[in-house]
């Protein structure tokens, strides 16, 4: 604990600030700041080293806000009025809770003056020190968004990959997403314009999922952008997808940490999905589980809406689609007593390269399998 003689605080506010900064490291133990985002009081600055008998004196006086601030103040700068909030005594310590959520970007100047306290108590206090410090509130961890996942979660991707999906733990802000995301080649050189730039980005409604569309004009062979600018990813090369942690969430807090994933590009996948190559295995106890090993890594968010289970009477059963990997899907359903069921595949299903069960992305409109009725696989249930 460092005592700062009162006389040292003379010399104007500039002097005070310089003085506070110079003594910052010595006086830290007198005050502590804590952020409590889930609490109604948001956070507190606590002064723990005031002797118990003096705390009792303060408690007995039941001070108003103005009286408190005459000896114990929290300010954002020396010329501002004190931060408004509530002073109280908690566990024999003097605690201040600001009225509004403390701003982690701001350094708060905290001052506690025994002489001023003596004046307002109209009594003598042997302590004569003035304590000052600069405290800041750590941003609450829960308000900092995190990248939950980036899919497809594959170390090896086809060179004609069409999309990434980035999932966040909290809604993201309105900054331009493309300022924070890049793909580098193995030499650390940033790829030029790999993504389709959509103003503000392609978001789900609560801004927790961003779709990064790799430029389809460059992915698709033989058309303008592909001819002039070339492929985005080339088979046999290594790349790194990087997301900068300076990107801010809707709360104003930046990402908890940066994201980086190495990606190896393999040969392009330029074939339609062939569901006849899928391996199906179904088990059933309290719930039914259909495990599907697919022939292509699937576009997961899309597949969750494009796969469903029907019984032989044509009734769609309530189900849930989950991915173990882009090539392994589990569909959970509520059993209805059937021993044989149908897996229905909407023809709009896509793999990670935009290939569908009807045509390859590169051959769209050219060589196209005409849909002959529904795309459907039947399976028996093992008990």
């Amino acid at each position, binding site marked *: 604990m460092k005592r700062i003689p009162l006389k040292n605080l003379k010399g104007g506010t500039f002097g005070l600030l310089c003085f506070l900064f110079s003594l910052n490291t010595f006086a830290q133990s007198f005050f502590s700041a804590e952020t409590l985002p889930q609490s109604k009081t948001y956070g507190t600055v606590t002064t723990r080293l005031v002797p118990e008998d003096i705390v009792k004196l303060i408690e007995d006086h039941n001070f108003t806000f103005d009286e408190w601030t005459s000896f114990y103040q929290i300010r954002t700068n020396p010329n*501002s009025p004190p931060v408004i909030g509530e002073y109280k005594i908690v566990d024999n310590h003097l605690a201040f809770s600001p009225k509004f959520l403390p701003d982690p970007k701001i350094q708060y100047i905290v001052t506690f003056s025994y002489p001023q306290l003596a004046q307002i108590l109209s009594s003598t206090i042997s302590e004569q020190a003035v304590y000052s410090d600069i405290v800041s509130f750590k941003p609450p961890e829960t308000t900092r968004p995190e990248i939950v996942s980036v899919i497809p979660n594959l170390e090896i991707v086809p060179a004609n990959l069409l999309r990434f999906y980035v999932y966040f733990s909290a809604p993201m802000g309105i900054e331009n997403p493309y300022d924070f995301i890049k793909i580098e080649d193995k030499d650390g050189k940033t790829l030029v314009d790999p993504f389709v730039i959509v103003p503000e980005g392609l978001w789900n409604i609560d801004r927790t999922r961003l779709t990064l569309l790799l430029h389809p004009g460059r992915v698709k062979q033989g058309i303008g952008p592909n001819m002039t600018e070339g492929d985005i990813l080339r088979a046999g090369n290594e790349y790194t997808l990087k997301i900068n942690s300076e990107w801010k969430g809707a709360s104003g807090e930046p990402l908890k940490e940066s994201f980086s994933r190495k990606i190896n590009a393999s040969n392009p996948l330029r074939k339609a999905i062939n569901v006849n190559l899928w391996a199906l295995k179904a088990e059933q106890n309290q719930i039914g589980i259909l495990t599907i090993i697919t022939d292509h890594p699937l576009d997961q968010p899309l597949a969750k809406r494009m796969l469903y289970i029907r019984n032989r009477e044509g009734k769609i059963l309530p189900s849930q689609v989950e991915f173990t990997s882009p090539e392994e899907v589990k569909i959970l359903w509520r059993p209805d007593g059937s021993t044989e069921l149908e897996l229905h595949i909407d023809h709009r299903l896509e793999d990670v390269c935009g290939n569908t069960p009807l045509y390859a992305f590169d051959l769209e409109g050219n060589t196209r399998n005409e849909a002959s009725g529904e795309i459907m696989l039947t399976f028996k249930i093992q008990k």
Partner: protein
Amino acid sequence: MQRTISVFTLVFFALITLAKDPGMKKGTPDIVSLSVLEFNKDGILFIGDSKGGAIYAVDLDDDKASSNDKPLNILDLEDKLAGMLGTTVDNIMVHDMAINPISQNIYLSVSRGRAKWSSKWETPNDLMDADVLIKVSPTGEMSEASLENVEYSSVTIPNPIDASIQHRWKKGATLRSDAITDIAFDDGKVYVTGLSNEEFRSAMWTAPYPFSKDISANTLEIFHGAHGKWETAAPVRAFLPYELNNQKQLLAAYLCTPLVTINAENLKEGQHVKGRTVAEFGAGNFPIDMVLYQNKGKDYILMSNSALPLLLFDPEDVANYNGEITEEVQGYLAGVKYTPRSGSGVQQLADFNSKYILATQRLPNGKLVLTSLSKEWLYP
């Protein structure tokens, strides 16, 4: 003898209570948004709560008379407010200002929401609910005016516009923020403007004060010369009661900026009332505030604007104007003339003392100042 004193004491305290507002009770009013502030001559603060759809009358126990006639200037108002709210200056927003005519204390409704501003047409209430009341003394000391455990009464606004109705072109704003746009107190009545759920949305409510359940509702219609049509959807933005030719009128200003007189006698429960458009002050603007003051014993009205200069007009010119604007005007100006006065960036206005009007003003350096405008220099 003792009994006589007790009866006298009871009557004395009863009279004091009656003089204020017998309907008041002690407690913490459940105010959602401090949208609009206005004082009556007895120092009762009226708070319009758009989100809550109610008007509150609050006795802040602030009745120590002040005869100060000095100006007040605070050059870094938002910096100081930011300090009090524990944030940075770019996040501070002043929603409204009112001055207690007894104590001359200035009250500001404030929020931490300016960072959300994205359009010149947005008002502070579109962006955020003001949630703290700040008191500034006539000499500039600032403190929080607590609304906890105060004497207050309230009245519910009948049929305020539904909270789910989106503004037609203000992205993300609902019309509910305009449920109450201005309040004026006159002769025992509280006049309230805003938007209702009626087919003709622009509304005027009139409540007796002290409050009773007899609040009357009127829908308003005006001819807007700059748009060349009759309008019922836009609310009054700023208004004040004034007697013209021995008739109580409400002088009301709207977006893009028609000035209208509304005959107070026509404000009978449920009536659809047409205002008389007496001036067009210019397009591309919304009026922010109006204040009545005297210069050399003569009344003038000063009006602050979002995009036009500070406007000064003579209510006598309004009284003497016999016409009515009912056709589209060319050049956006028509009817009663105004005098433009220097004061770009002036926002809130309130009568401060015998010599000064107090204003908030955005300076070219970006600072918001609390500044005193000398009445002596404000004449046409």
